């Protein structure tokens, strides 16, 4: 599903974020991406949905070479990937519902289906009664859960979750992880970047450990 061959990423001013990464994530896998702050986790995820291009190496996602992808094919790639951003990227002046609705509109999902789906997801993250509030008036953890729901609303083939539990208490974090696991069981490939080693230990999945841009360990 996701393959990287000798991928490196150097940001301007010679900031090396990733170097020589080779990895293979199977279709339907649930993978943890661990490592200290600044290790390159977010960068790796951004390469997958082509928010950045690698400085070197090749990346295959769903059989498509992301590095050589033509601009016109980019929307199709991104539609198949759900992303939970580390900084949420919610629109602070739209209601929670509208934040999710934005995605279903882009995807052209009919209204009736969209409404049902959004309702179900908001219920799953425990925010149904906050649907008409703006994220600005939500707590940090509530905002994070909106971001999670939004990433799932498109039923993506791949889900990239960047530190999805940083603002959640342990109970909620476990709930969210269970939700992601469920999504995974229904067939979605899930990659979770986190530095919560307790979570990783509890779930016991395939784990990639990054350190200073290098893949230092792989626990199958």
């Amino acid at each position, binding site marked *: 599903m996701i393959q990287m061959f000798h991928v490196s990423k150097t940001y301007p001013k010679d900031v090396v974020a990733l170097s020589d990464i080779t990895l293979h994530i199977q279709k339907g896998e649930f993978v943890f991406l661990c490592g200290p702050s600044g290790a390159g986790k977010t960068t790796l995820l951004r390469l997958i949905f082509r928010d950045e291009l690698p400085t070197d190496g090749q990346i295959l996602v769903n059989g498509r070479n992301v590095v050589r992808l033509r601009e016109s094919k980019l*929307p*199709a790639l*991104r*539609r198949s990937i759900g992303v939970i951003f580390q900084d949420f990227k919610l*629109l602070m002046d739209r209601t929670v519902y509208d934040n999710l609705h*934005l*995605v279903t509109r*882009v995807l*052209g999902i009919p209204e009736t289906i969209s409404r049902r789906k959004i309702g179900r997801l908001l219920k799953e993250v425990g925010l149904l009664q906050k649907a008409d509030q703006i994220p600005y008036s939500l707590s940090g953890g509530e905002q994070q859960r909106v971001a999670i729901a939004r990433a799932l609303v*498109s039923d993506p083939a791949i889900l990239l979750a960047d530190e999805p539990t940083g603002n959640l208490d342990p109970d909620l974090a476990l709930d969210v992880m269970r939700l992601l696991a469920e999504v995974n069981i229904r067939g979605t490939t899930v990659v979770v970047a986190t530095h919560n080693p307790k979570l990783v230990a509890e779930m016991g999945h395939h784990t990639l450990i990054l350190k200073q841009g290098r893949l230092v360990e792989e626990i199958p």
Partner: protein
Amino acid sequence: MLWERFRHLLGETFLNFRRGGWGVIASIGAIAIAFLVTGIFLLLTLNLSTVVARWAEDFQVVVFLDDTITKKQRTLVQKRLDGEMAVRDVTYLSKKEALADFRRKIRGQESLLEGLKTNPLPASFQLRIREQYQTADVLGHLAASLKRMEGIEDVLYGQEWVERLTSLIEVMKILGIVIGGVLGVASLFIVANTIRMAVYARAQEIEIMRLVGATRAYIQIPLILEGTLQGGLGAALALGLLYALFRGTLWQLGTTASMIFAGTELTQFLEAEYRMAMVGLGALLGGVGSLVAVRRFLKV
């Protein structure tokens, strides 16, 4: 499917529009103001040049004939004048009529003419000159060549007045072009800046849309439509305001206006074509401004 998508885009446009709030109002207002000012100039230029043209029409060239002219010579002169491009119409004034005219002119001092034995005034052709030939140059040439004909004693034309009016029209044209240019650039500037602000204000939304897989067209078309709509609405609003101003000014002036413009079918508003052109231009400006702003901002 296509229709569905089109409807969606329109819906999106109106949604953005509603969401814009104060910003959209400000934008339409700015465009309206640019067009209003341009419109005021257009209206002034149009009306004033009509006034000047009518006034200019009054100025005549007079061809005085020799008392010794034969009938045949006169016919020749008349033919020559009829064939002249610059001449709109020709009226013959006999010696008798000239004297009657003169008597009328010096009303109150008719006693001056009491001692006359013979009529000293010459017969003449009174010419009215087409507007586009009312330049000192053309009339000078015309006069010179006529003077060379047999039977013509002298040619008079209101040289000073012709030159004054000619240069007044010239000044107005140049000013019109200069001001029109300035305001055209200003309008484009305002529209592009407004849309830039709109794009900027929506930068986050656009980024998110791109990240969840929206196509370029999906993002850009509503913005461009919005600019077009804003431009058109702004121009239409300007037209409305212009009409109100126009009516208001006329009302204020009351009879005064009819006095200046008496006899001319003046105090006319912009014609339908001008009005349509203005709204169309507004929409075009809005669209182009958006396109520029969108392309520029959404490059990557």
